[in-house]
């Protein structure tokens, strides 16, 4: 799988319009992928696939979703590079991270 990583990076660099929409799936009380790296300006979408509601709340309260019931989505656009930790305020043991890199 390691060999795929430079390839994915190449796709990003070479064909910006073909970037897959970054998505985090909430399932089995985890955020997957747990850490997601996106270029500045990208919009990350969370989708809840659990029966249980969850939230997406920035550790520094920079963004905060309402309760996401099954199938609900929540999106945030990240303009500035940096590391953005977040958690579920209903189940605070669930944590994740968005790493935003300069284009």
């Amino acid at each position: 799988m390691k060999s795929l990583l430079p390839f994915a990076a190449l796709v990003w660099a070479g064909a910006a319009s073909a970037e897959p929409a970054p998505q985090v799936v909430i399932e089995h009380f985890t955020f997957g992928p747990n850490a997601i790296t996106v270029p500045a300006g990208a919009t990350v979408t969370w989708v809840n696939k659990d029966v249980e509601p969850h939230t997406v709340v920035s550790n520094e309260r920079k963004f905060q979703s309402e309760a996401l019931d099954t199938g609900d989505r929540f999106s945030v656009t990240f303009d500035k590079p940096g590391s953005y930790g977040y958690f579920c305020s209903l189940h605070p043991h669930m944590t994740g991270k968005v790493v935003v890199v300069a284009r």
Partner: protein
Amino acid sequence: MKDHDISRRGALSCLAWGGAGVLWTMAGGVPVASALAAGKASSASFSFVQISDTHIGFAKEANPDTSATARSAIELINSSAPDAALVLHTGDITHLSRAGEFDQAAELLKGLKPSELHLVPGEHDVLDSAKTAFFDRYGAASNRKGYYSFDHQGVHFIALVNVMEFQPGGQGRLGSDQIEWLEDDLKGRSASQPIVIFTHIPLWSLYEKWGWGTEDWPQAMSYLKRFGSVTVLNGHVHQVVQKVEGTVSHYAAASTSYPQPKPGEADGPGPLTVPAERLRAALGIRRIETLPLKISDGSLA
């Protein structure tokens, strides 16, 4: 409701995971598991009821009709404990903190024969960003803080809130303001006064990996250690579990909505779907007699 036989075997059989109930008695403010033949309650005796995790608004496979099961639980309270002095709701009244869910829950709870109802919020009750849905309805007793205390026939009841101060990666939290308030509330009280705490998330660390505990409970407990009898009633985990920490006895209650897996027996907590004909056996309410203290968990089926 199954009333437990006054027998040692009956009591021991109830100590297991998910058992139908537990029986404890209290003598002189000290819980005594073996004093099962202890005689009559004192003249100051009274009973009260715990109902928990009604999750009004939830309507999925694990329970398509949480209003119906909540109604059954209320009927069970009315038939088995019509003289209960109080009813304690230990949170997750609603599933998503929606106004309609709170309205429906209030309508159902009006059907309770015992007239005095006390509630603490679960994390599902404070999901609205303004956090007004719960406090507009039930905040008066606590000046909108959620935590408060009152005395009933010699027993000191304390409502604690551990769902408002979550931090990333953590468990339930009481927060320093509430702990300070608790210290103050207990100051000057006789150590022989029985204490009953009701809250949502377990105060003891039942299963940290799923957040089933309260991070700053040890600090709060330090103010309770001098008391001879402290009983903690909580919800959140949707199953009967008990734990003894010195003079503090914790009792997690069944829900009236849906069961949850035992710690570690699934990928995570959350609704556990059981065959429809077995659902009601996994739901229940709890009746507490005092003094001496006697706790009986009864299922809806």
